């Protein structure tokens, strides 16, 4: 894989009147990378995506997608990216195939190529049998898959996914992730996605955490979690005082007595625990290893958590709307 930069942002700024939604973002995404964009609602994620995908004008700064300037080479940028928006943008009054066909025409594909691509993307998203059905009869997960299929019609180099799994059941979410990984592995696609599901961000190669218009952290999920601190191990023992003493004597670990037993930090819990147990210093009745999560990272950086309850009214309506759509 070449080390080509597929998305580049330099001092990206978006102002709406007095309000600065995006405050000079810098980022670089390599070809074939799955890049996650994380943050609470209103952090500026969608605004950034809008600028990178030419929907919204930059107030200041520079951005290039697939080597093209988003301001000056709008059509080239648009041809080289596929987008799946947060809100559904399919025409539900048309069939799956018609949605793909019109998309192909819109992106200037020849009709033989449209047929070929439509077959390929429908197969990839496992929707062949429903090709002639009206999209209104589709479930939420099928709609999302069709939307991804449509975004792939014109062979984009970069795929933007804005909250691709919101409002989907866990099984469908897992499936969407499988597709995304396949796309990267088999087609070398670069994927830029936003999410506020912390557990999903783990699938990304690198993550940028955004808050109040700024990127406050950018690294691999593992590095980010490591930056928070060590693993936390909690042991239940027959004799807590004895265990604390043994840990101090043998590993120079300062353990504390907590409600659930004995608790201490370890740099690498997975390798430390077998070592500890092998020594058989004291009797352990149960143990718990807790790795830092991206939630902890966000908590440390902002003093807040990203939680589903934080969804704004707009998002709640959107979710309700989606659920309603799913039932049909």
């Amino acid at each position, binding site marked *: 894989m070449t080390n080509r930069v597929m998305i580049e942002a330099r001092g990206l700024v978006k102002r709406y009147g007095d309000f600065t939604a995006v405050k000079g973002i810098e980022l670089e995404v390599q070809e074939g990378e799955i890049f996650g964009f994380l943050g609470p609602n209103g952090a500026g994620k969608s605004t950034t995506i809008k600028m990178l995908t030419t929907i919204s004008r930059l107030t200041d700064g520079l951005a290039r997608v697939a080597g093209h300037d988003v301001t000056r080479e709008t059509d*080239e940028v*648009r041809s080289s990216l596929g987008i799946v*928006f947060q809100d559904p943008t*399919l025409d539900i009054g*048309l069939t799956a195939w018609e949605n793909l066909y*019109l998309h192909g025409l*819109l992106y200037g594909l020849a009709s033989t190529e449209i047929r070929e691509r439509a077959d390929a993307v429908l197969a990839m998203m496992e929707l062949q049998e429903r090709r002639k059905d009206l999209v209104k009869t589709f479930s939420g997960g099928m709609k999302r898959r069709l939307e991804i299929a449509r975004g792939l019609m014109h062979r984009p180099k970069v795929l933007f996914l804005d909250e691709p799994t919101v409002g989907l059941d866990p099984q469908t979410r897992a499936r969407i992730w499988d597709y995304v990984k396949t796309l990267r592995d088999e087609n070398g696609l670069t994927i830029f996605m936003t999410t506020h599901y912390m557990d999903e961000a783990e699938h990304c190669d690198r993550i940028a955490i955004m808050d109040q218009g700024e990127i406050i952290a950018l690294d691999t999920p593992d590095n980010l979690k490591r930056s928070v601190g060590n693993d936390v191990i909690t042991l239940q023992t027959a004799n807590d005082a004895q265990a604390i003493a043994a840990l101090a004597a043998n590993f120079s670990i300062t353990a504390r007595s907590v409600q659930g037993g004995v608790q201490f930090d370890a740099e690498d819990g997975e390798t430390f625990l077998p070592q500890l147990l092998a020594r058989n210093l004291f009797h352990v009745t149960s143990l718990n290893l807790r790795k830092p999560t991206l939630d902890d990272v966000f908590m440390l950086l902002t003093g807040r958590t990203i939680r589903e309850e934080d969804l704004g009214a707009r998002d709640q309506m959107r979710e309700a709307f989606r659920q309603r759509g799913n039932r049909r």
Partner: protein
Amino acid sequence: MSLRAVYVVWLRELIKFWREKARIVTSLVQPAVWLFVMGKGLSGFVHLHGPFSGSYTAFMLPGVMGMTVLFASIFSSVSIIWDRDFGFLKEMLVAPVPRSALVFGKILSGATVAMIQGTLVLIFSPFVGVQLSFTGVLEAMGTMFLLSLSLSGLGIAVATRMTSMQGFQLVMNFLLMPMYFLSGAIYPLQGLPTWMSAIARIDPLAYGVDALKWALIRFHQFSLSVDYAVLVGLAVVFTLIATSLFKMEG
């Protein structure tokens, strides 16, 4: 200008129009009510004076076709709000095509649908005493297409300024009914109070209805060259306004 993009937008609307055949049939209900409930009912005591010698319902037929074109054009331009609310507009806005192509496509599809619906009203002609000629029908279709270009342009121009469907409905109710009544569709524009004929003069529909009357019942009140000059002029002006307003959006 990307003709292909114009075609895509046009094709999408036409596929959906064709799919909703029930809508095509119900679009004939309103004209039928006007012709047979209003027209037949009024024809007993409406006596047309002057150059037109046919029945009152015959006089109404071109006007009712004009009304059909008016409503069809406006409703097709409403779909741009629908697309915005339900997201499909975004799919088109991120495509590598100029925004003006989207507006042209909408206007052309609106005009096509309106022309088809208006032409369908002609199935009532035997019942209202209008003899159709081949050239008359062609002239009428051309007129309806031209009329609808300007009305769809107007509709889109208004729609781009509206944030909700309700707002659009409100504006259109203030606009549509007066436009219809003052177009000469149901009474000739002669001997009206000055203020009424003044408004009729700025009613785009009046020129369309006048040209339709000439095509179908060989009766007109303005000169035909004025009719067509106004219709072409308005089609161009409203299309330009709609395009520039739409470009400003977002």
